[in-house]
């Protein structure tokens, strides 16, 4: 029986998987595009846009942290359906340490990282032994269990009512522009960290593990330890996204971190493209902005999301990011 994961997928579709061929040029293009995107985000508040656009941009940044962190796990060949819940864990940790224990904001954000990372460290060694489909199923169930904890631990988490009236961390952050820049810096640090990590040896190791974990083991890579490390970091980063979103929306409840949210992150990653860091970024931009054009039709949005997933999974495994290469490939085949 054919085993899971991306390798078969990429191979079966005969996608050019150019790893090194022209990689400096590609890297330069990506760098230019990335810096361009960053420039847009930096000058955004000065464009005289409405407060709504600014809050949309903040949402994009928060979601971007979550999706890029999930990207690391997906790059290893594991699709986690609990990422939204890990984000929620960070949100609860950050908000509770401010609301219940009166800790200062920076320490709260450290807890936002530590809480999900700690859980990931405990369960990671068990979960990451599982092959693709079992991992998906377990994370699916795990997400449900943690959500139930949020709902049922009334005295601490406020149950299904959630926690509202979350105070601002600093007076200065009452200004949406200030909050926006804080989020931008956080996103820059987190996404930059992920990007740097994927460019380093660790990134190569991650790709090797996805393509063939046994081969990786033979090459002397401590596969499980590596997987757990990446999983812990990814879940911790998702927690930071959760912490920021808690203070941004100033209200948290279990439903905002349910399976639907986890699914959204997976959709963004896969439709954007799961083999490159650009994928989740494009996916996030696409799927946070697109729904705004369909505001009155929340259900229709979900239907479109679903159809996108089917189409991408069936015909375009490299996602939107791979679209150009895919078209080029097809054209060159036809006009040989």
């Amino acid at each position, binding site marked *: 029986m054919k085993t899971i994961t991306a390798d078969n997928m990429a191979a079966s579709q005969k996608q050019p998987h150019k790893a090194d061929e022209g990689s400096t040029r590609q890297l330069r293009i990506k760098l230019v595009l990335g810096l361009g995107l960053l420039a847009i985000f930096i000058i955004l508040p000065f464009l005289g846009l409405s407060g709504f656009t600014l809050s949309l941009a903040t949402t994009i940044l928060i979601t971007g942290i979550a999706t890029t962190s999930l990207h690391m796990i997906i790059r290893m060949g594991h699709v986690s359906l609990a990422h939204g819940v890990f984000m929620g864990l960070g949100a609860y940790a950050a908000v509770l340490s401010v609301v219940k224990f009166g800790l200062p904001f920076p320490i709260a954000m450290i807890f936002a990282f530590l809480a999900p990372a700690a859980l990931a460290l405990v369960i990671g060694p068990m979960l990451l032994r599982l092959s693709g489909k079992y991992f998906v199923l377990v994370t699916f*169930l795990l997400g*449900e*269990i943690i959500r139930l904890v949020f709902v049922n631990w009334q005295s601490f988490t406020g149950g299904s009512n959630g926690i509202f009236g979350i105070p601002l961390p600093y007076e200065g952050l009452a200004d949406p522009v200030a909050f926006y820049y804080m989020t931008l810096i956080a996103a820059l640090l987190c996404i930059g960290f992920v990007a740097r990590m994927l460019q380093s040896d660790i990134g190569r190791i991650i790709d090797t593990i996805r393509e063939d974990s046994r081969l990786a083991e033979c090459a002397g890579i401590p596969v499980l330890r590596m997987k757990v490390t990446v999983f812990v970091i990814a879940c911790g980063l998702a927690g930071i996204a959760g912490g920021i979103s808690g203070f941004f929306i100033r209200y948290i409840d279990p439903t905002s971190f349910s399976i639907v949210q986890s699914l959204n992150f997976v959709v963004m990653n896969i439709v954007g493209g799961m083999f490159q860091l650009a994928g989740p970024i494009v996916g996030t931009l696409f799927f946070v902005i697109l729904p705004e054009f369909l505001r009155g039709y929340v259900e229709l949005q*979900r239907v479109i999301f679903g159809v996108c997933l089917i189409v991408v*999974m069936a015909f375009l495994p490299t996602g939107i990011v791979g679209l150009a290469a895919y078209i080029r490939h097809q054209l060159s085949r036809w006009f040989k």
Partner: protein
Amino acid sequence: MFSPAVLGQVLINGISLSAIYILVSLGFTLLFGIMRVVNFAHGAMAMLGGYALYYIYGEANLPYLIAMPLAAASVAALALVLERLVYRWFYQKMFQSMIGLLGLDMALVYSAVIIWGPHERSIPSPIDTVYRLGPLFLSGSKLVVIGLAAVTLAAFYLFTHFTKYGLAMRAAAQDVETAEVQGINTDRIYMLAFFIAIFMAAMAGGFFAQNYILSPFMGERQLMMAFIAVILGGMGSIPGVALGGLILGMAESILGTYFGSTTSVFVTFGAVIVLLIVRPWGLLGIPENR
């Protein structure tokens, strides 16, 4: 609290719940065993079954014994269209099928919300009477569920074990390539298996809608339970599914009655996670990488 009457009642509820779970998960495991497709849209199919029964039985008032199979068959027929449009791209591709069909599930569920609205409905019960058997109260609708499910499962067993197509289906489940070499038209077998699987799921959805609630989101629970039953028994194993469904239905009924539904969910999910970690191929399954 532990009197024989209560225990008997718990047992009856457990069996009717088990029947529904077995029906859902049998189709799920069939699709997985034959086509290597992890059908995340299975719950949505069950949900469609519920709505089909709502219109055919609840609105059109056809006799129940006709309406029930008709509803399930109409959903299965509709699903055959989806098979041509969506599923066939994912055959023998486990990973892609999982994510792609997650998309299909989303599309179906929210299409249902658009068409029928998010509110909950109910389907009238075919038999309102409650029978007394000693200290036990047997509600008619639960008996109908148990009876029809038993008939369906028996038919399924007879079909797979005593007909040519059933044999071909089992052969394809064991090894598609070898089955093809033996002259089995796997394309047709796929469609047949697909029809049967969705038929059973839609039927279970109808039962569930009738005994509990009908809403576009009801499939989520069916899907989760199918997962759990299939994992418990072992992916792709048919006797395993029967065992898994039985354990699950009983556990839910017993734990739910004595400790509340939240505890029951915690315990079952926790047990499944532990099982997956210790023995991912399930109780009766066979390890994949021998």
